[in-house]
């Protein structure tokens, strides 16, 4: 279970302070698939970055499986990201010097659990997202949709409890978008991975079982 209590994020722009998140609270059940929507500047990406432990909130708590993770030191947060969380960036965020296969198994190398062949698993994940024949390609040799699916496979390498996807289809054409979203839905249904994704496209609501709508850093709608 993922819970958020009274989460606030304030950015300081000189003497002006911007409340990007303002007392946000909600819970997401294990295995759920939740879409975060809202207008541009509403705080969607900011919320996802706090949840993905890429940034620290100004106040409030993030609770992951009954543990408050908000105040953990950087090294512990890095370990949590590695072991329990997967993050899919809007701009794919693949490492240019690594092939698709290497991009996917790199976090597995870092985790390095005994008995798991991460190279084999990375190959399987790339096949799962439909890129079994492109494992030796470098990011620049892949289309945007393919890169995003590599990023999804990478997010899955350590069998995370939760995957965060920040507008995963923002830079994709409609066909690629559909394929990426269907991949996420498939993972949620087949692997029971909790997925929280941000989207500005109202059509993407159909992929989620839960919805959070933000406006000016506050939740204005929450439900199914």
């Amino acid at each position, binding site marked *: 279970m993922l819970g958020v209590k009274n989460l606030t994020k304030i950015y300081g722009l000189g003497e002006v302070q911007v409340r990007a998140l303002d007392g946000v609270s909600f819970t997401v059940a294990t295995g759920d698939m939740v879409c975060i929507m809202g207008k541009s500047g509403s705080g969607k990406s900011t919320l996802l970055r706090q949840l*993905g432990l890429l940034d620290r909130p100004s106040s409030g708590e993030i609770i992951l499986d009954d543990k408050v993770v908000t105040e953990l030191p950087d090294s512990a947060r*890095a370990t949590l990201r*590695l072991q329990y969380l997967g993050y899919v*960036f809007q701009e794919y965020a693949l*490492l240019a010097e690594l092939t698709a296969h290497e991009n996917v198994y*790199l*976090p597995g190398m*870092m985790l390095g659990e005994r008995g798991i062949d991460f190279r084999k698993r990375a190959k399987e994940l790339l096949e799962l997202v439909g890129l079994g024949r492109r494992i030796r390609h470098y990011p620049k040799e892949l289309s945007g949709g393919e890169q995003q699916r590599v990023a999804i496979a990478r997010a899955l390498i350590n069998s995370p409890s939760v995957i965060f996807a920040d507008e995963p289809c923002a830079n994709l054409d409609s066909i690629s978008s559909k394929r990426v979203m269907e991949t996420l839905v498939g993972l949620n249904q087949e692997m029971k991975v909790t997925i929280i994704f941000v989207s500005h496209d109202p059509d993407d609501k159909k992929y989620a079982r839960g919805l959070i709508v933000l406006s000016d850093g506050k939740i204005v709608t929450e439900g199914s």
Partner: protein
Amino acid sequence: MIKSLRVATFLALKSIIKGNVGVIVLTIFMLILVTMNLLFVPGLINGANVSMNSILVRTYSGDIIIGPEGDKTVINHVGDLITRIESIDGVVAASARNDINAYIEFEDNRVSRVVTAIDPAREKEVFEVSRSLIEGKYLDTRDRDQILLGIQVAGADREDIELYSSSLRHVHAGDKVVVTYSNGLEKQYTVKGIFDTGFIQTDLQAFVTELEFNSVMPNMYDKASSIRVKLEEGADPQRVIERIASMGNNLEFQTWEETAGLVESMTESFILINQILNVVNYLVAGITVFIVTYVDVVNRRRQIGIQRAIGIKSHSITVSYLIRALFYAIVGLIIGILFFKYVVIPVEARHPFEFPFGPAYLITQPSYTARMAFILLVVSLTAAFIPVWRVMRIKILDAIWG
């Protein structure tokens, strides 16, 4: 720890393989130059030092210099003493010398020099002056009224020599010079030969035979102001000194190192110059690695942010950059050392640098090379660590999105 190192090595290897070949080659090339520079200067100083010390021992001091003890000015019973010295294991030969101050005149030129009386046969066994004649012949034991002059005394119309202006300038073998000894005796000598060893201290000397000297100073028979001893290679001078001292003749001893004041001061100056150049070289190496790493981490800031975001530990990323710096330094060192050893040294050996005291060959000491390599590696690691450490302090989101 092993996992982190494995990831760091993987990232380093990938960035080297996929990195900009031009930048990698240029960085390694810089480090090759730095390595060769770090080897060349001390190699030359070592070579010059060895060459200087060698010529000092071979032409001027011998391995051990024996003098009278305390206020005494002469060593007595020299003939017997030399026989006993030469019986000691490790001693090749010994030669007695008597020095007397004198003025030497030729035409309008007059110089003040020490004239040294020698037994030419023994001197040939201890010193190599006889092999450095540029005019005339070496002295014979029975020679009288003959004198042997160093090039810095004779001048020999060689305006290129260091002390030409304070020499007799135009003296050649066969010319006659007038010597006025400090006891007031004035005598004319024929210059039998002129020698040029390349070592100024030696070439400032003038020699006559013992036989001749006994006619000038009859009371000096079987006496000497010093005895020069040549040792076998590898012989322990201190052990020989102890053996001679045990003979009980009230003598004072100096090894050649203790007489090498001029050489020592030159060596110290060389060492100081070398240290300054080394600091500059290490700075160049450090700055090169720093700039390359700095530019690299600035260009890859986003990539580093992504690596951190997907859970790669900061220390793995840092170590990956240190491995790259090590790679540059190790490759630079290996190529630099091999090139120096198998190309520079052989080429220099064929065309050695000529110094006033003779040719100097490049000599590298393994201990110095090891120390230099270690320092260069530490400098490279430190230089790489600083920019990476700075980037690692940036927040992940700032690293990715600026």
